[in-house]
């Protein structure tokens, strides 16, 4: 009977992820290709927003994955703190830059869309601001990983930071809603476009969502492999020195 914890063994993780990676990357490329090409070229323009709506095939999935990446780091940190599986800590470390880039993409595409539609590159809307803060959280998390030399201490401290940071991220999200409504009117636009979206936009969006999900998975697997190899290399170098 195999269990999830088998993959805590680095060797098992390496062989399984090596077998999975081509498939995951392939599905990611396929879904992204289909979703983006379909979304960009084979969907009609919106009657009010014109072709600018098409940026949402990038914007929405990257924003969703930006949050999910942090949640994944939170789960990995918990597993590290509780069961001390090194692969888990390294996966959290590997996911952080990917999540940060997704956050940056979401902010960037949002700004590009906001300029013609809202008439501004940036608005201090709670949702936008929350993403900016999430970006800062990613920066701090990665900086702490870089700053501490002992890998186990670094894994411990970043895990603690991730746990505390998650609580504060949630508080910040709701504080921002309070802040904005308290000062002036609420958000002018809601980005929850999926709810009232027609099928012809929904199907390419689904492909694009799946594509971004698999892209994240592929990148994290790939980066975790790199981290494990780097760790092994370090151990080998240390062994050489001792001998």
């Amino acid at each position, binding site marked *: 009977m195999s269990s999830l914890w088998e993959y805590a063994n680095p060797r098992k993780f390496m062989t399984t992820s090596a077998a999975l990676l081509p498939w995951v990357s392939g599905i990611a490329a396929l879904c992204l290709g289909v979703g983006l090409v379909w979304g960009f070229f084979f969907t009609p323009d919106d009657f009010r927003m014109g072709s600018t709506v098409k940026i949402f095939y990038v914007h929405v999935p990257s924003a969703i994955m930006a949050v999910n990446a942090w949640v994944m780091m939170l789960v990995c940190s918990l597993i590290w703190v509780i069961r001390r599986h090194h692969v888990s800590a390294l996966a959290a470390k590997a996911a952080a830059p990917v999540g940060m880039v997704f956050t940056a993409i979401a902010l960037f595409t949002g700004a590009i869309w906001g300029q013609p539609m809202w008439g501004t590159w940036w608005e201090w809307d709670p949702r936008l601001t929350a993403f900016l803060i999430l970006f800062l959280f990613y920066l*701090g998390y990665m900086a702490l990983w870089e700053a501490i030399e002992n890998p186990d*201490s670094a894994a411990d401290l970043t895990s603690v930071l991730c746990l505390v940071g998650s609580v504060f991220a949630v508080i910040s999200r709701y*504080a*921002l809603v*309070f802040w904005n409504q308290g000062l002036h009117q609420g958000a002018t636009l809601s980005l929850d476009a999926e709810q009232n979206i027609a099928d012809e936009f929904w199907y390419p969006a689904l492909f694009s969502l799946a594509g971004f999900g698999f892209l994240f998975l592929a990148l994290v697997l790939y980066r975790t492999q790199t981290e494990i190899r780097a760790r092994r290399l370090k151990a080998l170098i240390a062994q050489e020195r001792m001998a």
Partner: protein
Amino acid sequence: MKGLFKRDLALAIRAGGGFGLGLAFFLIVTILVPFGVGPNTATLSIIAPGVLWIGALLACLLSLDRVFQVDWEDGSLDLLATSPLPLENVAAAKALAHWVTTGLPLVVAAPILGLLLNLPMPGYLWLMLSLALGTPALSAIGTFGAALTVGVKRGGLLLSLLVLPLYVPTLIFGALVVTRGAAGLDATTPLALLAGITLATLAGLPFAAAAALRVNLR
């Protein structure tokens, strides 16, 4: 715990830079703002709540890297860790000492600086109240950040990067209390939320700080 608190207090006062430096920094930040935005009193009174809160926050940040750093370098932190006092209490005492040496003077000095920024009259009470209730949270969060980075050499910049995003909710509610109070609106809701954040950080973060300290002392 009381002894540790008294010791930290005495060290901060005698070594200088405890009361003085944070206050002076608060003063300078506040004075620099009119140079940046112009001396128009109407503009200043609008931005005064935010500026005062950000000034207080930065002044708190300034002295954070010594919360554990000195004790870490001369080895007293190891002694504290091996003493019967739980590390959680050490972290709480340190946060309290930091607040008394940094946060409390800011609360007292803030009305004078509010005068400089032309803060509207009804705002003063709310300013002092919000700072008194909110700065303990800044010290508690900051102590956690200091515990995380105590093993990092020249970790000041890293500490700011870690701690400032965590300050967001405190800052939002704190400045909101003063903004609403200065405008003559009811500010009790953000004040209650601010107090909630302070109580939650005081209750929870010493444990996180102690966990980080244990890792760093390993």
